[in-house]
């Protein structure tokens, strides 16, 4: 029952908020905020309570609410489950989601669509809860699609500007491409194992009977879905544009919901991916390429939110390296810690944007440390955590991934991972220095930061600092508690403690090198970069990927559409129809001259008819 509540509460409150917004003239922000924050708060409490039960060793929960479809072999239960993986995901999604809701109360204050916003926001939480709690791939897919819908609604929230709507469409379409892969995978999977039940546990039991080639295809297609949802090459283009939405939306998409879904899905199908290491390698390659590409792009961006967007993509790349190499626990661990500091960073950035009246260019900011210490220090912690500085949360999770990569058959992933770590440290420190430390470009007298905007940062700062201890590896006195708790089909790797310390030292040194480089270049302020070198220009133009997609997909599609409209529809279809109607018309005109009212003519017709009949009779007889 409590599982059903986890789904029903956010959807219910979303419905209630939507009804209130649409059908009543109530515009009390207090009321909307109360309902809008109350629902996620409740589900956080339930999720934490249930999660605590799982920690204490309770059985995983399985609830079948009703049979949704039952056609021959196709039997889909609307079933929810709450195992260790769901527990971890649900706990941080709901808690961080609640904090973001709280932040949104401050951020959206005074917006005409306040009620609508919270209706969408709760809907987003409900969709994510459905995705995480699903007991079979079909229900997971429903959640998956609803998450896409919610993101579409929220990215295009300021729908009066057409650029925002375009961004929302882009997100939706890119996700559709991925979803196509996902659907194909589900169909194939059902064809292979659907007869014997389609819940995750049933699939796991039958997975060994599936042909290896088919399994690989399913694995790749599932990952195509993850590419779309989790913004990996080549379907990542929507993520930076998704910054068009209000900042709390970005926080929610990047930290708690949406983009983590892909990693979660791969971890959920760990029993499948563990059998197809070649596909895993493909995932890892895509992951590391995405991580590198986006980290490079992030170093040259000047829009504060876009930097964070590319940073998310880069961190997602890490996670896919982990799950691709079979270190599912490490991947989920990074999802978990990343949620804390990425939510914090987005919310901090949101506070900055509000304080500066929607200025987003970091080169026009500066010196904000004095005015908003409650934003600066949490963001400093988050930056350190994201850059993987010991002992903050990001260090342990990133270290787990790097260790898994180094110990795998392909240590190159580890090396590239360290390069990405360097870039991460560089671009994050660049952001922090330019916004908070560099001399101010404008004289601020006082910048007001509402407590709604700054207070939710504090628990997240605490989380960014300490969340990593839960999954701390053996080398640091922990016992990989999180990984053991998740009990996914991780591949066993063994690094000696000594090499693990060495790796940690190396990654910290690299992070500090990134900080130092950023400090040298940006501590005393800088102008917006004017790219001179070819490579810099490439980075600034985001490797022309958007332009490439535009030229390869958008332009030909538009041409074909125009051709269809002008030639096929206008000339061919309308022409054929015109021939029919025009011919009929001409024929009718000719016929009508026969009926001229002249009785003598009628007599002629009559007589010709009689003559013909007579001839016929003569001939037949």
């Amino acid at each position: 029952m409590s599982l059903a509540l986890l789904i029903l509460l956010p959807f219910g409150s979303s419905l209630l908020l939507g009804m209130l917004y649409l059908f009543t003239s109530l515009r009390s922000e207090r009321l909307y905020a109360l309902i809008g924050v109350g629902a996620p708060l409740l589900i956080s409490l339930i999720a934490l309570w249930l999660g605590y039960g799982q920690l204490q060793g309770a059985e995983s929960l399985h609830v079948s609410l009703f049979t949704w479809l039952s056609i021959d072999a196709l039997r889909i239960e609307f079933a929810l489950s709450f195992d260790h993986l769901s527990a971890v995901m649900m706990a941080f999604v709901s808690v961080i989601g609640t904090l973001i809701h709280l932040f949104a109360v401050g951020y959206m204050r005074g917006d005409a669509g306040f009620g609508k916003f919270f209706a969408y926001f709760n809907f987003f939480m409900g969709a994510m809860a459905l995705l995480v709690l699903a007991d079979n791939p079909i229900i997971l897919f429903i959640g998956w699609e609803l998450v896409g819908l919610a993101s579409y609604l929220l990215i295009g929230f300021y729908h009066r500007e057409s650029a925002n709507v375009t961004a929302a469409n882009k997100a939706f379409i890119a996700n559709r491409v991925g979803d196509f892969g996902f659907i194909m995978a589900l169909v194939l999977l059902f064809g292979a194992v659907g007869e014997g039940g389609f819940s995750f546990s049933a699939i796991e039991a039958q997975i060994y009977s599936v042909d290896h080639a088919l399994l690989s295809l399913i694995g790749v297609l599932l990952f195509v879905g993850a590419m779309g949802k989790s913004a990996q090459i080549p379907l990542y283009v929507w993520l930076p544009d998704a910054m068009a939405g209000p900042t709390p939306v970005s926080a929610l998409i990047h930290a708690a919901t949406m983009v983590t879904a892909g990693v979660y899905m791969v971890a959920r199908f760990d029993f499948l991916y563990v059998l197809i290491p070649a596909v895993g390698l493909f995932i890892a390659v895509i992951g590391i390429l995405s991580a590198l590409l986006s980290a490079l792009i992030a170093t040259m961006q000047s829009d504060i939110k876009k930097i964070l967007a590319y940073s998310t993509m880069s961190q997602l790349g890490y996670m896919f390296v982990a799950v691709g190499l079979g270190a599912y626990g490490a991947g989920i661990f990074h999802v978990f810690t990343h949620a804390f500091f990425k939510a914090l960073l987005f919310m901090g950035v949101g506070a900055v944007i509000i304080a500066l009246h929607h200025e987003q260019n970091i080169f026009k900011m500066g010196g904000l440390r004095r005015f908003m210490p409650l934003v600066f220090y949490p963001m400093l912690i988050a930056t350190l955590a994201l850059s993987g500085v010991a002992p903050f949360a990001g260090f342990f999770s990133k270290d787990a991934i790097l260790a898994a990569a180094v110990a795998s058959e392909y240590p190159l992933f580890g090396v590239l991972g360290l390069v990405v770590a360097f870039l991460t440290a560089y671009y994050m420190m660049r952001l922090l220095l330019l916004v908070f430390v560099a001399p101010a470009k404008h004289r601020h007298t006082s910048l007001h930061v509402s407590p709604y905007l700054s207070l939710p940062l504090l628990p997240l700062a605490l989380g960014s600092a300490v969340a990593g201890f839960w999954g701390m590896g053996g080398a640091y006195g922990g016992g990989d508690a999180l990984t053991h708790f998740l009990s996914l089909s991780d591949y066993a790797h063994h690094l000696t403690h000594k090499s693990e310390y060495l790796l940690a030292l190396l990654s910290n040194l690299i992070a500090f090198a990134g900080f130092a480089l950023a400090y040298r270049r940006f501590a005393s302020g800088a102008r917006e970069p004017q790219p001179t070198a070819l490579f810099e220009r490439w980075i600034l133009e985001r490797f022309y990927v958007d332009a490439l997609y535009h030229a390869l997909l958008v332009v030909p599609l538009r041409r074909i559409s125009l051709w269809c409209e002008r030639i096929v529809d206008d000339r061919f279809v309308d022409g054929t129809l015109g021939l029919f109607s025009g011919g009929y018309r001409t024929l009718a005109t000719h016929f009508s001259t026969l009926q001229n009212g002249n009785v003598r003519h009628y007599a002629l017709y009559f007589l010709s008819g009689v003559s013909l009949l007579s001839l016929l009779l003569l001939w037949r007889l």
Partner: protein
Amino acid sequence: MSPLHFLLLGTLLFGIGLVGVIARRNLFVVYMSIELMLSAVNLLLATFSRIRGDEGGAVLSLLLIAVIAAEAAIFLAMIIALFRAKRSIDAHDFTQLSQEHNA
């Protein structure tokens, strides 16, 4: 004279009447053509009666001559009525059966 000659004559008269109905515009000529066709048919009736050796047909055709005379009275009255309506006995002036002329 064999009955074939009568049949030929009847057909010829009928054809003349037909051409008259179709080709002439004067209502009187049209009327006379119609009468001609009727008489041609009457002649054929009498001929067939003779061929069959059944005198009933000959009696019927005699009666029919009387009917034709009566019909002539009606026809002439109708032509007078038409002339009163349009001051014309040209068949082209009477096209009320077609829709465009009604309007």
